[in-house]
C-alpha cells in the first residue's frame, strides 16, 4: 500500500509530460499579472493604499516590512509590471518571476488592511512559477539559449499549479459549509437584495429563494468544480460553469479582477491537446522556428529535496486553512485563523470602534477620531478585526505618549497612556453586539497567535 502510494507519487510528479500547458499558462498568467499591475497603478491605488496612509498594519512577525518613502512606492509596482511583461514573453524568466514574487509579496506584507485572498493567491502562484521552467519553449529565453528548449517537463511542474487552484476552490467550498451560509443564506441575502432595482432580474435577486439557491450552488460549485474540470468528459461543461459562475459574481459584487483571474487560471486543467494546438497556433502567428532536440539526453532524475519540498508545500497549504480548529469560539466573530484560508465573500461584517486614550494619573480621557490616523479603508477593516484593533491601540499609545493637551485653565502631558476601545460589530445582518468591551486596557495585551479571550463572546 505504502509502496504503491510511493510509486504513484513518483509516477505522477516526475513523469515527463508535454510542456505545452505550462508554456500556455506562463503566457496567460504573465498577461494577467501585467494587466492587474497596470490597473492597480492607473486606478491610483498606489497613492491611496501605500502613500497616503500614515500607519500600516503589519503582519505578525513581518512588522519590520516598511513602505518606501512617498513616490518611491511606485517602484515595486513598476517593477512588477515590467516583470509581468517579461514573464509573459519568457524573457529572463527566472529573474522576472523572482522579481515579481518579491515585489508583490513585499507590497502585500506592508498592510493587512489590503489583504485579499486573491492577492495571496497571486503571491503563491508567482512563487510556484518561480520554481517551474515555464520558459523552455516559445520564449525569448528559448530563442536566446536554444539548449534550454524542451518538449516535455516533469508532471509536478503542471500539477502543483492545479493543486493550488484545487486548494482555493475546495477550501472556499468547505468554508461555505456553515449555518449562516446554508441555512440563513447570509450574507448573500443582504448583498443580493441590494440589487432589487436592476431591470428584469431585480425582483428575482431580491427573492429569498434566490439567496438560498446561490448559496447552495456556490458551495457545491466550489467543492466539486475541480473534479469536473479534471475529468475529460465533464470538462467542457465544467468550464462553462466556471465562466458563468465567475461572471455572475463579477456582475453582482465588487470583486475586481478576481473572477477573471480564476476564469483564465483554470485553463490549466485543459488537456494537453488543447494547449498544444493553441501553442502551435501562436507559434505559427509569430513564425516561431522549432528547434528542439527530438530526444532529451538527460531526463533529470527526481531529486529527494524537490520531493520533500513539494510534500512540505502541500502540507502547509492544507494545514494553514485548517488552523482555525485550534481556536475556541466563533471563527467569523473572532477571526482567529481566518486569513490565508480561502474564505472568500463569506461574511458581511460592519463595525464601529471608539478608542479612548486615558491619562493614567488623572483618569482623563480622549476620544480618538480614527480617521485622523487611518484612511477610511483602513478604519473600515480595523473595526471588525481584533488583531488590527489591538495594533491600532498600540499605535495610539505611541502616538499620544508625550503629547500635551491644554485649554485656558489647565495643561496635561500624557505619559504612557492607557488605550481602551468600545467596539460594536454586526455579523451577517444580525443586530450589532458588543465586540470589545471598554474595560480592557489594550496596551497591556500582547499581540500574538494565542486565543484572544478579551473578545466578547458571540451570541447567535
Amino acid at each position, binding site marked *: 500500500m505504502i509502496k504503491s502510494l510511493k510509486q504513484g507519487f513518483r509516477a505522477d510528479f516526475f513523469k515527463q509530460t508535454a510542456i505545452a500547458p505550462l508554456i500556455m499558462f506562463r503566457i496567460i498568467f504573465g498577461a494577467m499579472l501585467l494587466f492587474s499591475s497596470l490597473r492597480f497603478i492607473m486606478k491610483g*491605488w498606489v497613492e491611496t493604499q501605500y502613500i497616503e496612509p500614515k500607519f500600516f498594519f503589519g503582519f505578525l512577525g513581518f512588522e519590520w516590512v516598511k513602505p518606501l518613502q512617498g513616490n518611491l512606492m511606485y517602484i515595486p509596482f513598476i517593477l512588477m509590471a515590467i516583470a509581468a511583461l517579461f514573464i509573459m514573453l519568457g524573457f529572463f524568466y527566472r529573474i522576472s518571476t523572482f522579481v515579481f514574487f518579491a515585489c508583490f509579496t513585499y507590497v502585500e506584507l506592508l498592510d493587512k488592511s489590503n489583504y485579499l485572498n486573491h492577492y495571496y493567491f497571486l503571491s503563491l502562484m508567482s512563487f510556484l512559477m518561480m520554481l517551474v521552467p515555464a520558459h523552455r519553449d516559445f520564449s525569448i529565453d528559448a530563442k536566446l539559449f536554444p539548449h534550454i528548449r524542451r518538449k516535455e517537463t516533469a508532471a509536478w511542474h503542471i500539477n502543483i499549479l492545479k493543486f493550488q487552484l484545487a486548494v482555493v476552490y475546495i477550501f472556499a467550498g468547505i468554508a461555505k459549509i456553515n449555518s449562516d451560509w446554508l441555512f440563513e443564506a447570509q450574507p448573500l441575502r443582504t448583498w443580493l437584495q441590494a440589487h*432589487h432595482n436592476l431591470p428584469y432580474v431585480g425582483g428575482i435577486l431580491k427573492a429569498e429563494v*434566490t439567496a438560498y439557491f446561490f448559496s447552495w450552488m456556490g458551495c457545491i460549485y466550489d467543492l466539486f468544480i475541480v473534479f469536473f474540470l479534471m475529468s475529460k468528459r465533464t470538462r467542457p461543461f465544467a468550464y462553462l460553469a466556471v465562466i458563468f459562475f465567475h461572471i455572475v459574481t463579477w456582475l453582482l459584487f*465588487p*470583486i475586481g479582477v*478576481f473572477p477573471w483571474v480564476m476564469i483564465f487560471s483554470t485553463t490549466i486543467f485543459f488537456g494537453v491537446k488543447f494547449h498544444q494546438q493553441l501553442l502551435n497556433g501562436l507559434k505559427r502567428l509569430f513564425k516561431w522556428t522549432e528547434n528542439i532536440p527530438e530526444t532529451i539526453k538527460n531526463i533529470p532524475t527526481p531529486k529527494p529535496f524537490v520531493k520533500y519540498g513539494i510534500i512540505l508545500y502541500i502540507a502547509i497549504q492544507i494545514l494553514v486553512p485548517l488552523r482555525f480548529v485550534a481556536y475556541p469560539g466563533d471563527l467569523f466573530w473572532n477571526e482567529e485563523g481566518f486569513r490565508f484560508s480561502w474564505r472568500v465573500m463569506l461574511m458581511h461584517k460592519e463595525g464601529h470602534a471608539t478608542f479612548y486614550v486615558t491619562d493614567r494619573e488623572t483618569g482623563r480621557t480622549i476620544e480618538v477620531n480614527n480617521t485622523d490616523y487611518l484612511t477610511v479603508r483602513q478604519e473600515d477593516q480595523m473595526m471588525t478585526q481584533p488583531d488590527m484593533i489591538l495594533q491600532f491601540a498600540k499605535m495610539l499609545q505611541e502616538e499620544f505618549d508625550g503629547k500635551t493637551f491644554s485649554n485656558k485653565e489647565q495643561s496635561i502631558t500624557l505619559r504612557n497612556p492607557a488605550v481602551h476601545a468600545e467596539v460594536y460589530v454586526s455579523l451577517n445582518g444580525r443586530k450589532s453586539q458588543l465586540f470589545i468591551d471598554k474595560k480592557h486596557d489594550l496596551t497591556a495585551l500582547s499581540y500574538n497567535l494565542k486565543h484572544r479571550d478579551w473578545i466578547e463572546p458571540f451570541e447567535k
Partner: protein
Amino acid sequence: MLKRSVGFVLMLSVGLLFSCKDKKDKDSEENEFNKAEMLTNVSANIILPSLTQFDAEISDLKSSFVNFKNAPTQANLDEVKMNWKASYLTWQTLKIFDFGPIRDIGFKSSTGTYPVDPAKIESNINSGSYNLAAISNLDAIGLNALDYLFYNSNALAELQNNAAYVEYAEKVIQKLYNETQSVVNAWSSYKSTFNESTGTSSTSAFSEFVNEFNRDYELAKTAKIGIPIGKANLGLSNPEYVEARYSGISFDLLIESIKALKATYNGKGLINGKSGLGFSDYLVNLEKTSLDNTINNKFDIILSKAEGFSMTLEEAINDPSMENQLDELYLHLQQQVVNIKTDMTAAFGVLITYQDNDGD
C-alpha cells in the same frame, strides 16, 4: 451522470424562475420599497426644496447687506442677521448631501467650516490682499466667518466705519452666493443621475448618500458637541471650537441638524412637508422594524436633550453644573452612531469605503 446533473440544474433554474414570479407578485402587494423611488423622493422633497430655499435666503442675505451698506443702521443689520440665521438653519439639511455638485466644488467645507480663525480674518481685512478661494482661507470664509463679522463685540462699529471690513463681509457673501448658484445649476442636471444611481458600488449615488448621511451625523456629534466639550482634549473644554460662537445659536443649529437628519432618515421634506420613502422604509422592508424604532426613538431622545438647555453652548460649557447634562447629550449622540453606521448600513449591504477596490 452528467446528463442527470445538467437536468437537475435546469430543473432548479426553471423552478426558481416560477417561484420567483409568485414571490414577486406577492411582494409588490405587500411591500413597495424601491431604492429608485427613495432617491427620487429624497431629491424632489428634501434636497431640491432645501437648495431652492437656501438659494433664496442667500440672495436675501446679499441684498439686505447691500441695503445695510447704503444705510448702516442697527435695524438694517438685524435684517442681515435674520437672513444669515435663516440660511444657516437651512444649511443644516443641505450639508448632509456632500456628493455630486456639492462635493465637486467643495461647497460643504467652504460654507460650513468652523471654528473660523478671527485673527486670520482680521489680518486679511487689514492687509487688504487675500484670496478667499485659497484652502488656507477655509477658516476665514463661509457662514461662520459671517458669524464673527456680524456678531463680535465690535461688529456694528466696524461695519459702520471700516470700509475694508464691509468689503470683506461683502466678498464672503458674494462667494457664498456664487457657489450656491453653481450648485443650483449643477443639481438641475445631476438630479436624473442621482435618481437612477441605485447600484451597490461605492460610487453609486445610493452608497454615497448612505455614507454621507453617516458622515454628517458623526460630524454633527463630534464637531458641534464633542470637540467643544473637550472629548478630544482630555475633557478640557474648548469653547473656542463652538460653532457660531459669536451669535450663540449653536444649540439651534444642533437641533436643526438632528431634525434634518431624522427627517431625511424618514424620507420627509422639512420644507414642503411632503413625505415619501426613506431609509426607515427600507429597514421596515428588510424586516428590521425594531431597528427602525430604535433609531427614531434615539433621534427623539437626542432632540429632547438638546432642547433642554436654556443657554448658549458656550455658557453651558463654562458652567460646571451643566457638565453632566452635556455628557448625557453626547452619550446619546454617540449611541446613535452604532444604530445607523453599523446596523442600518449592514442591513442595506452598502460598502462603507469611499474608493472602488478589488474585493474578495
